[in-house]
């Protein structure tokens, strides 16, 4: 996938990274970490600003955990520098130990201390507090994660989600300046997850903590983050506010990763693009000016941008006004509130349409897919 060799929509956008005027609390500059032949983190540069919650989003194995470990000081970069509050904490000839960084970390694998009780685990980072404050804090946090009854139990006796909650409570207890969360909600059910992430967000906002979280769940990333950094193969592919990243992806990778994305292709000709979905005027397409005339482009359409209606039955086909449709449903997915239909358009492009669960269309049914958007569409040079 060679993107951006032909200038694309992305170039015209405001770099969301420049939106901040304060000094970054965390700064990674060209950070690299290699494991043998594998480059887990590859010249990654990123700034995190005070009080914000930035989420690293990316496919499994793209280097998210490694990045957090580098930030926490649990691993040394092979190249590049990491700054906290403008002080170099990891660089060619400097390395600050994790305990001198005031950085908290929730481990993907929890890493609870098996020799301590749940309560003692939570109290671990605040053992220098006065006893009564410590007690109160532990109680508060265990209440927060709904585990007050398990205080004296052993972490080994907890369920997966319960362990994750203990890990979360433990890292929140000392209120570190920087909080790193590695998939902190992956084992929690949806309501608990919503509850917990609201709470984490509240704590972050209230205490002015700066947080970097890792998730594989794009909905979670979009809904709680101040900014989202999409990581691909060890480096940042795009970073920006959730809406921007979702609606104006700078690359096809980002577009596809953030949600089901369909693409319809065509050639810009005479101010419009002829596609399987009909003729799209260039002005509904973000930044596709006349200068691109003759370019073959893929226009991205999200499930919620499209509406599918059943085509008329074949028996009616003869009728002059019968609609033969423009595609066929090849896959349907029930998600509860809605169905997502995957439609293969007659021209061969694949798109997804999201419908209220009441609109129950059958597999293999012919449909007419129409674009119904009120925002400009993103496009990429055709592959």
């Amino acid at each position: 996938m060679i993107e951006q060799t032909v200038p694309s929509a992305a170039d015209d956008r405001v770099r969301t990274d420049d939106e901040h005027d304060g000094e970054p609390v965390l700064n990674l500059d060209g950070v690299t970490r290699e494991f043998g032949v594998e480059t887990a983190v590859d010249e990654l540069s990123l700034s995190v600003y005070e009080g914000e919650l930035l989420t690293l989003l990316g496919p499994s194995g793209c280097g998210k955990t490694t990045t957090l470990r580098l930030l926490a000081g649990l691993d040394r970069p092979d190249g590049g520098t990491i700054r906290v509050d403008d002080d170099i904490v990891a660089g060619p000839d400097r390395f600050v130990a994790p305990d001198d960084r005031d950085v908290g970390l929730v481990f993907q694998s929890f890493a609870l201390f098996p020799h301590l009780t749940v309560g003692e685990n939570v109290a671990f980072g605040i053992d220098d507090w006065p006893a009564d404050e410590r007690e109160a804090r532990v109680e508060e946090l265990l209440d927060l994660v709904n585990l007050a009854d398990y205080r004296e139990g052993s972490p080994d006796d907890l369920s997966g989600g319960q362990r994750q909650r203990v890990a979360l409570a433990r890292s929140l207890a000392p209120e570190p300046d920087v909080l790193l969360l590695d998939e902190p909600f992956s084992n929690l059910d949806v309501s608990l997850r919503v509850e917990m992430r609201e709470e984490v967000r509240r704590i972050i906002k209230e205490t002015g903590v700066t947080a970097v979280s890792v998730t594989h769940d794009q909905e979670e990333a979009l809904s709680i983050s101040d900014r989202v950094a999409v990581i691909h193969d060890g480096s940042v592919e795009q970073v920006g506010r959730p809406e921007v990243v979702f609606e104006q992806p700078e690359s096809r990778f980002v577009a596809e990763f953030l949600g089901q994305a369909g693409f319809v292709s065509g050639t810009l000709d005479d101010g419009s693009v002829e596609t399987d979905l009909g003729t799209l005027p260039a002005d509904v397409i973000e930044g596709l000016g006349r200068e691109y005339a003759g370019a073959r482009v893929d226009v991205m359409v999200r499930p919620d941008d499209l509406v599918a209606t059943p085509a008329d039955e074949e028996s009616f086909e003869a009728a002059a006004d019968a609609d033969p449709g423009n595609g066929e449903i090849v896959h349907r997915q029930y998600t509860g509130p809605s169905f997502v239909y995957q439609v293969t358009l007659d021209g061969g492009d694949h798109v997804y349409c999201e419908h209220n669960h009441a609109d129950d269309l059958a597999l293999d049914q012919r449909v007419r897919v129409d674009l119904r958007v009120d925002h400009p569409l993103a496009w990429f040079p055709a592959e």
Partner: protein
Amino acid sequence: MSVRERVGPASDLLPEDGVNALYAVLATLLAFALVAPLAWLAVDAAGLGSEALDFFVASETLAVLVRSVALVAVVTAGGVAIGVPLAVLTVQASIPFRRFWTVLIALPLAVPSYLGAFAAISAFGPSGPLSTALGVPLPAVEGFAGAAIVLTLYTYPYIFLTTRASLLSLDASLVEAARTLNCGRLAAFRRVTLPQILPGIAAGALLVALYALADFGTPNFMNLEVYTQFIYSRHRAGLGGYAALLSLQLLAVTGVILAAESAIGADDSGAYASRGNRGAAELDLGAWRYPAMALPALVATAALVLPIGIFAFWLLRGGPGYEFAQLTFSWTYGWNSVKVSLVAAVASILVALPIALRSATADSKLSSLAARVPYVGYATPGIVLAIALISFTLNAAPSLYELGRDTVALVVFAYVVRFMPQAIGSIQTSTMQVDGRLIEAARTLGRSRFEAFRAVTFPLIVPGIVTGAALVFLTSMKELPATLLLRPFGFDTLVTFIWRAEEAGLYGQAAVPAFVLVVVSGLSMAVLLAQEDD
């Protein structure tokens, strides 16, 4: 609802109750069979009748009790103080030549402590060679302090090796978690690493404590009257009943030590599962890693270089001996040592495995008793064991005895009885560190209990098995009293030769075999430790 149910090796390793009970009974029988010869002591002691009680509470008996217990306490504490830092240094710190130091530090275990005691006595003192060489008078090493120092120097490797095995299987992410919770290196060690390796330390400390209790040679040289001396002198005086009674008393002390250890080691704290995220918990010493080498160097000098140096000095300069006499050293002695020790190591592992696995995976009282009973054999002074073994076999099955004298069978049996508990401890510790879910995973992938053991548990407890085998091997290499009494005619080993040379006052001639003993032990250690690397 114990921890083990979840993370300790699946208790369903043996799901059917029938098999379960059968196994427990077998393991227990085995354990008891091993120490049965010692029951002979009770028969002996019973002959004393009511006198026994008076003797038990006589003030001199009590004095010996206090002295012995004090020696055990001091030596154990000293062993922990040396063994644990050395283990941390060689496992977690980046000191140069780690592997070399590891082997070297473990080696004193192969040096008979009486050799060390003898060297210390000879080297120190106002008119000893060290004083002469250095030109300053050095104090004599003797008595309680002398025995404590020497025993510590030759037993800390127990703690070193078991702690090392625990550290190797420690889950590194736990230390990392502590570091991100603002614990410095030391605090993280104290609050996370230490509690995790405590069962390992306790397993080693148990061996040290029992060794200190059962050792004869060192207190003898240092002229410290502890149990073994007391027993020996009664025995020499033909007071077999009293000797047996004292031996029983010694075994009672052993029981107390075992109980104390089980309070630390067998508490569920031993059941930590490790995710096997190995090697990452590095202790970065920076430039300190060079000076840090001083610690192992110092210990190795005191425990290895000193005795070999003293013997070599006598070899070259002529010792306080009869220089015309010549004992003929033969390399077959070395081969004999290695041979019996290897057989004993393998046999011990075979016996220890079922007992250790059983007690690591089940919570039954019976099985944990089965794992502890054999320690009685370890705590029995070699001479007592040998005598008990001789009278037992002679009375119970003379033909068995004769077979034993024709082959090395009795020697090997004695080694197994005395040293197999060392393997139990290390196998037990490493088994408890195997995540029970791994075995469960194997079971759901269609492996039977036994196959799951072979394919999963066994490879994962190899470090424990190797450590156990190394301990048995090293201690068998140096075992003297039982070897002397139980070996076939004409069967000499390095230690029996050293003993002969030394008894004859031909101290210089002990230098070569002592050196060979250390080198052979060192090589075998290197081979054993090499297997731990994947």
